[in-house]
């Protein structure tokens, strides 16, 4: 199913749509309050955007620098050209350590690469330790949001999932109690797993260090207790220097949830004595995106999800309607880069209202890129023949003023005489909206008579 079809299903339960919309709008409002407390907010966004601009222009050098420094720190660095290679590298590390169980904190990259499914097929048990991710993992669903993976679930539903999968008491819905139960269950996993995988929010070229941001401390619990820490990062996560980090950490949590900073902002440099630390640096289409000038800036993304929370379409269609690991406006400009045929619907799942581009902490021109993707997709033939024919007809009529005047007049007359030709169930406009009432004369007809 494509986005409009999935969105239509989501909208069959209007109360749920209202609840989803209000929940995410509240997050947007918290973002606004946090941003407005910093008079320098817009300057900060500009600085972040420019730093990332520099990174993208010099990515090759920064990556080599980062690798060298990380290796000096005792970190093993791996390079993965695509999702498959990434998954194979992680699997190989697990096999080499004779481990069949692993804890994993939040990493959208591993969602993008479908790591869990790959490892499970190869006999590895993966436990997601981010609470939201754990909920969707138990439910057998992908995350619907990159910061709040189970935001589409109501607390009563989470109680039900826990009851079903963890054997907790039925009918629980108190968030505090549910969180406590998940924590107890996860604690046991943290203590017994020898390998922990984390994502990476920022990788610092000048030092080889990397930073992982969470609100639950689950990345730290995993990494500090395990013998092997695997950190996976998209190659665009680089920032040049330590001094740039503050620009991003100030923007990230405020944009994401309205917090001044994430509860845990953990800096990793080198493995503890006896510990292994692996970094997997992944391309998976990023080089291609870097080569597309119109879409390059999408690689500036720091995965804050502000564009999702503000998006009026996302709020009313739900994250799963985007059928890709990264939903919402940013996902809609990233996904076609990976596969145009599969994601040709996504750049059209927007009104081009522009709210996304203006909340984006790194100033990605998201809505402009949506517009440009539409042009590319049509040029590449990812459009229905009927739509193409309709557009050609429209262009022909509008390119000739006499045809336009006659067509308009005839159309209005027909609408007045036979309203049923447009006001019927085959017309998607008419399903929930009345058609405009056609006036007797057009403006140009009036103008001829009166001026």
């Amino acid at each position, binding site marked *: 199913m494509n986005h409009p079809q999935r969105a239509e299903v989501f909208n069959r339960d209007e109360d749920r749509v209202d609840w989803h919309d209000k929940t995410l709008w509240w997050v947007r409002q918290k973002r606004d309050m946090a941003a407005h407390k910093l008079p320098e907010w817009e300057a900060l966004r500009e600085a972040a955007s420019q730093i990332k601009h520099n990174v993208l222009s010099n990515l090759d050098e920064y990556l080599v620098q980062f690798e060298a420094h990380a290796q000096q720190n005792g970190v093993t660095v791996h390079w993965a050209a695509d999702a498959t290679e990434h998954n194979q590298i992680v699997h190989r590390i697990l096999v080499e350590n004779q481990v069949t169980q692993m804890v994993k904190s939040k990493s959208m990259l591993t969602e993008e690469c479908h790591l869990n499914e790959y490892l499970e097929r190869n006999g590895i048990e993966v436990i997601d330790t981010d609470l939201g991710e754990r909920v969707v993992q138990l439910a057998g669903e992908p995350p619907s949001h990159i910061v709040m993976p189970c935001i589409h679930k109501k607390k009563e539903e989470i109680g039900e999932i826990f009851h079903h999968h963890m054997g907790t008491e039925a009918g629980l819905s108190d968030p505090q109690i549910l969180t406590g139960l998940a924590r107890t269950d996860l604690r046991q996993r943290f203590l017994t797993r020898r390998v922990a995988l984390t994502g990476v929010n920022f990788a610092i070229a000048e030092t080889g260090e990397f930073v992982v941001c969470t609100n639950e401390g689950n990345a730290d619990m995993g990494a500090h207790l395990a013998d092997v820490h695997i950190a996976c990062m998209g190659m665009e996560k680089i920032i040049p220097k330590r001094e740039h980090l503050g620009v991003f950490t100030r923007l990230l949590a405020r944009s994401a949830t309205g917090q001044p900073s994430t509860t845990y902002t953990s800096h990793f440099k080198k493995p503890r004595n006896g510990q292994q630390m692996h970094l997997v640096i992944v391309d998976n289409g990023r080089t291609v995106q870097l080569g597309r000038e119109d879409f390059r800036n999408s690689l500036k993304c720091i995965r804050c999800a502000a564009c999702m929370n503000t998006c009026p379409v996302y709020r009313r269609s739900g994250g799963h309607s985007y059928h890709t690991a990264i939903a919402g406006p940013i996902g809609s400009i990233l996904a076609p880069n990976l596969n145009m045929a599969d994601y040709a619907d996504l750049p059209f799942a927007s009104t081009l209202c522009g709210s996304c581009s203006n909340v984006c902490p790194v100033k990605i021109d998201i809505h402009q890129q949506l517009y440009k993707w539409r042009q590319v997709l*049509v040029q590449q033939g990812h459009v229905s023949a009927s739509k193409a024919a309709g557009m050609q007809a429209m262009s022909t009529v509008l390119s000739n003023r006499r045809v336009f005047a006659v067509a308009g007049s005839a159309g209005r007359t027909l609408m007045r005489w036979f309203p049923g030709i447009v006001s019927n169930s085959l017309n998607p406009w008419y399903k*929930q909206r009345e058609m405009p009432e056609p006036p007797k004369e057009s403006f140009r007809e009036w103008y001829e008579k009166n001026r």
Partner: protein
Amino acid sequence: MTTVGLFVPCYVDQFYPKAAIATLELLEKQQINGGPIQVVFPKGQTCCGQPMANSGFEHLTKPLNEQFVEQFGAVDYIVSPSGSCALHLKEHLHSDRNEDRATATRQKVYELTEFLTDVVKVTHLKARFPYRVGLHQSCHGLRGLHLSQMSELVASPFSKPMQLLNMVDGIEMVNLDRPDECCGFGGTFCVVEEAVSAKMGKDRVADHVRHGAEYITGADLSCLMHLEGILRRQNSRTKVIHIAEILNS
């Protein structure tokens, strides 16, 4: 004398002639630097091309662009009662035949409230509209043309349409819970993504109705046409009206 070319969007010409008449009359009353304005309506105009371009068919708008440059190349200003069409022209009007002329044409395009505020510098209006009115901030006018300050940015508030509406006698503007959320029209989005589009429209309408608006106004009839479709389906007493009709009332 300053010449203003009136650009009436295709659907406004066909479905909302009253808004175009109000725009014409309103412009004819204005002066620039103490001198009168001559308003002309080039008759060969049709459409800015946005419906095709936003659907991914910008390449089909070339004949429309040439037509537009030909029709409007000679006037001093081009004014349109639609933020969305004005924005499209400003961003995408190009010409294979004469790009310099297209650039010059592009640069003199104004949305109506922007023209009244920034070029005419209107300080008072002889208008009376004794009703409770909600202002719908259309996205392309708001975030594209920057007709008002958007809630996303940490920046000083201002609003050109509101500044003009506040000059109208008897008008009472209502506050909204979400003063600048999209209505969900979005061109072909309104039929391609019918479910989400209609829901967005219903939510926008509810905000205005909840706050007692008798009229919803705005600088873009495309959004208002969508909201009107929903209001009429709900048999609501709230109506839509283009801002030019209020400013010219």
